[in-house]
């Protein structure tokens, strides 16, 4: 599964994506973000104010409790400034 990072989050991590294989107990977007944050201090610090982020599964914005089953990509989206 791909995890995609954008804007200042991408800059802070110094990469635009990760390829990950989370364990079976990682069932939702929230679980995935928690699991990623445990493995990466920089990401954990960047996600400190978790409520400001939105998430997308396969290029659709979804609530954080959305199940990951069958997802190819999850995007972590910092607050958007729009067009």
């Amino acid at each position, binding site marked *: 599964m791909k995890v*995609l990072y*954008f*804007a*200042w989050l991408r800059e802070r991590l110094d990469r635009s994506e990760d390829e990950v294989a989370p364990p079976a107990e990682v069932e939702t977007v929230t679980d995935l973000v928690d699991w990623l944050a445990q493995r990466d201090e920089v990401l954990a610090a960047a996600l400190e104010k978790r409520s400001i982020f939105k998430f*997308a599964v396969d*290029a*659709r*914005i979804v609530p954080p409790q959305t199940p990951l089953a069958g997802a190819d990509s999850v*995007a972590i*989206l*910092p*607050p*958007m*400034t*729009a*067009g």
Partner: protein
Amino acid sequence: MSVEVITGSFDPGAAYSEFLAGARGIGAGVVFTGVVRSTHERPITALILECYVELATNEIEAIRRSAVDRFALAEAHIIHRHGRLLPGEPIMQVMTLAEHRGAAFDGAQYLMDYLKTDAPFWKKEETADGSKWVEPVAADAVARLRWEQT
């Protein structure tokens, strides 16, 4: 195609002419073009718009469909650029067609207000002193609210 998320520039007039060429049995067309702004008080050398193209296309298409339904538009088309843009260049364009001008204007205004708050883009301003990400603007959220109250 009714939503275009593109990197290169576009010709606003040519895009509108092409859009109008498909119009039959309607009486009103409205076009709005957003332009990169650099002011004396707040000069910028460039505006960088980052986006997740697939997501932006999906989200803008959802906004477009809601405008078409709400105002019974005959057609609506949105062009939105991303990448590095220079002052004076067009950023985006919204075009609507409807039977009468009220719906065409309202549809375009609604699309703009929603795009300003809900289009998934990140803006970074380049100035002589460096570059920084732009924070969301509260006034844009207020502009959108009027459509939720009517």
